[in-house]
């Protein structure tokens, strides 16, 4: 009964969503305010019914209703309750429903928070969001419903949730990622609405910016947590594989990063308008393309996803309508737009413009690396593989000019700068960072590779320029506290974003260069050493979870004979699927992670263990979190919360 109600709710939501797509867009086209005014209520109604539908799936999962195919395939009666809830996004069909729910949530948020927008724009934004909602919802209803029934023949027990997904990281990773992907549809809708309205002015950029920032911050968090999950749960100590599925999330992130920078130029200086609109379209298009890549099985990935040409065709058709349609609209409308601002070669505008170039080039590299095997094959040139070294090399080449720019950019002012003034700061910070990073690396490590030193130098440089810049801005004020107060939240968002990025660069460089590991065969009481740590193997104990059994290797870690930590490296057998899983034991630290994976047992009672020492690995995720915090900070900027004064809600305003 409940699953049927869930399906029915989704159908009702779909009907409301169709109206949400038609009424406001038609109303805006004909100038009919009554039709436009229906939009917020329809958005609310759609959200409520999607939520009901989702709650029905949660209820079904919690009550072990294995007559529902999705629950039977992705849950079991012995699964802990919180994983029963997260199993609702553990596989394709449920994940689509969560996607639709998040889409409805963003739509209703926009409807509630856009009261001060002119009706023409507001209606069009909501109409476009409605259109996207129809696309995703019809896909879910027609091709991937999580409410498919197995009646009359259904299993008494479910197949359990994939053990890889039974991890806290996996509880929050997909929803965060979807908040990001789907959130980009809001900036997309603002761009399309602005193109339809024909008014690509600062208002549009100003409205679009906080929404884009929020989506981008969620995407940043989602990617960060995804990487951390891979590290903690896959047991191989790695954090990024350049897999098509990972690339699918990186591409919209790179373009969205370009977008938030170019939006700030458009908002403050009225420049790059047509470019910014294109980025807004591209960012969401790439998240659709990513969905297509992941869900169609068009590219073989190490992540296992169901492949289905019918699903692929639908998404491709949707992609053609949405992306093709919006690019056509773009081509027709944007030629009339002229940028207003004037600026000189040495200015923040140019720095932002270059930043965009680098980010777009980075995106193209990822896109090329991901799709080239496909294109190559379809051109009849045979199969090729593009592996990690290609991406690593391309990105290390791009990093150098990009980091230079990143350190320089914040020091520059809009329009024009005196080269000499900036040069002094630049030279000073450069000197400091060369000294600090060389001192750091050469004193800590016997061997220092050029690339590692360069990367750390840039990381330090970015941090130093940020601090110098804050110092200078504060010193221009009469007192420090007044100076700090004057710096707006947007400024702090930028600083956090850049410092977070510095942490990521340093973390990646150091952990890539100085991670070491060794495999050892140990009897209880044996001690193995790696770097300055000694690992004493204290034997193995049995463990028993709700849906797994297994062993935990107990390892005491010592440093100079002082106790550091006791670690349990687990090997679990998930009883239903008969899958073995390695639960790595991690002692995390600011400057290093100790990472242990339990291997096999030998006949004589000895065990094999793999010990990893990973310096500064945590800085990557710390950096990601700092970047995301910066993104969220801007939401509290007063400039974006102040209501616009004159409302043009009257009929006259609309008709004009």
């Amino acid at each position, binding site marked *: 009964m409940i699953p049927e109600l869930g399906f029915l709710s989704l159908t009702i939501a779909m009907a409301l969503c169709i109206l949400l797509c038609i009424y406001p867009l038609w109303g805006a086209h004909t100038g009919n305010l009554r039709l436009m005014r229906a939009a917020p209520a329809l958005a609310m109604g759609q959200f409520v019914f999607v939520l009901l539908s989702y709650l029905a799936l949660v209820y079904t999962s919690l009550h072990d209703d294995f007559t529902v195919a999705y629950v039977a395939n992705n849950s079991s009666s012995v699964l802990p309750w919180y994983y029963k809830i997260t199993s609702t996004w553990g596989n394709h069909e449920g994940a689509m429903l969560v996607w639709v729910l998040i889409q409805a949530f963003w739509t209703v948020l926009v409807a509630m928070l856009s009261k001060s927008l002119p009706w023409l724009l507001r209606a069009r934004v909501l109409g476009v969001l409605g259109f996207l909602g129809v696309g995703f919802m019809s896909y879910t209803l027609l091709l991937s419903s999580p409410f498919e029934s197995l009646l009359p023949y259904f299993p008494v027990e479910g197949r359990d949730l994939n053990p890889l997904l039974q991890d806290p990281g996996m509880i929050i990773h997909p929803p965060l990622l979807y908040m990001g992907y789907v959130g980009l549809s809001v900036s997309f809708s603002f761009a399309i609405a602005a193109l339809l309205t024909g008014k690509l002015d600062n208002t549009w950029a100003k409205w679009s910016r906080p929404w884009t920032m929020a989506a981008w911050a969620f995407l940043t968090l989602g990617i960060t947590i995804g990487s951390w999950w891979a590290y903690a749960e896959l047991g191989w100590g*790695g954090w990024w594989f350049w897999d098509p599925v990972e690339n699918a999330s990186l591409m919209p992130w790179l373009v969205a990063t370009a977008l938030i920078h170019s939006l700030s130029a458009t908002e403050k200086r009225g420049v790059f308008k047509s470019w910014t609109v294109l980025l807004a*379209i591209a960012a969401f298009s790439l998240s659709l393309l990513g969905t297509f890549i992941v869900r169609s099985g068009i*590219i073989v990935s190490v992540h296992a996803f169901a492949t289905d040409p019918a699903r692929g065709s639908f998404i491709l058709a949707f992609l*053609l309508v949405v992306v093709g349609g919006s690019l056509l609209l773009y081509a027709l409308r944007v030629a009339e737009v002229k940028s207003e601002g004037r600026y000189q070669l040495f200015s923040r505008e140019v720095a932002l413009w270059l930043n965009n170039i680098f980010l777009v080039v980075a995106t193209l590299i990822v896109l090329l690396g991901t799709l080239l095997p496909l294109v190559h094959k379809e051109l009849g040139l045979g*199969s090729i593989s593009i592996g990690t070294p290609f991406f690593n090399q391309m990105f290390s080449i791009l990093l150098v000019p990009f980091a230079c720019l990143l350190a320089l950019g914040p020091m520059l002012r809009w329009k024009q700068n005196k080269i000499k003034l900036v040069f002094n700061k630049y030279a000073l910070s450069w000197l400091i960072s060369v000294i600090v990073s060389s001192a750091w690396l050469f004193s800590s490590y016997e061997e220092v590779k050029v690339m590692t030193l360069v990367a750390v130098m840039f990381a330090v440089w970015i941090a130093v320029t940020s601090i110098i810049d804050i110092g200078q801005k504060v010193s221009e004020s009469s007192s420090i506290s007044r100076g700090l107060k004057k710096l707006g939240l947007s400024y702090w968002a930028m600083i956090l974003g850049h410092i977070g990025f510095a942490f990521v660069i340093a973390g990646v460089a150091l952990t890539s260069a100085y991670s070491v590991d060794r495999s050892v065969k140990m009897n209880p009481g044996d001690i193995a050493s790696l770097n300055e740590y000694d690992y004493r193997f204290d034997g193995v104990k049995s463990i028993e979870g709700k849906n797994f059994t297994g062993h935990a290797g107990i390892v005491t870690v010592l440093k100079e004979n002082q106790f550091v930590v006791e670690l349990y490296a687990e090997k679990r057998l998930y009883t239903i699927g008969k899958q073995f899983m390695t639960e790595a034991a991690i002692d995390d630290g600011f400057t290093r992670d100790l990472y242990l994976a339990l*291997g096999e047992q030998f006949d004589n009672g000895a065990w094999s263990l793999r010990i990893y020492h990973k310096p500064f690995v945590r800085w990557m995720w710390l950096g990601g979190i700092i970047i995301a915090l910066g993104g969220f900070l801007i939401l509290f900027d007063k400039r974006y919360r102040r209501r616009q004064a004159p409302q043009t809600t009257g009929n006259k305003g609309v008709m004009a």
Partner: protein
Amino acid sequence: MNRKLLFLTPLAIFLLLSIFLFKGLFSDPRVLQSGRIGQTMPEFALPDLMQPDKQWRNTDLLGDVYLLNVWGTWCPTCVAELGYLTELRKQGIKIVGLYFEQGYDADFGDQFSLPDLQIEVSEMLARAGNPYAFNMLDLNRTVLLDLGVSGAPETFLVDSKGTILLHHTGDINSRVWRAKFAPVIAELSP
């Protein structure tokens, strides 16, 4: 007019891309991986994983029908299929392992210890079953790249003349074996 054309470029690029996406959708993703079907095994000389003094050449393998199985201890699916592959070995199928060391990339100064890997592999095979006649180690991934391998597990069926008959991506289980491999092998030995 020029300006209009400029703004049409994104659309043109997207449409071009869609053609490939559309074509890709209807070419079987397995076939996508199988650009090597019908070709002969690339020439190679690889060390034996357990006895690195011994080199295996592609010519050493001629004369037998065999499965070339790309695998690694880091890959859970590979470990999962060891059991079924061992059964196949008992039925007289010759299986040669091509070990894919994922964590090593000389260009990035990664560390690699052969003795550690040997211990790890022998434990794994002792526990999960050993289907392999022998294992070759392709540390620099040249053969892996020549074969168009994109991950693990992947398996090639090669005939006695060294021609690649099948390229399968993903694990081999009884269903895959019956549907894909058995018919081809049946044709070989009438």
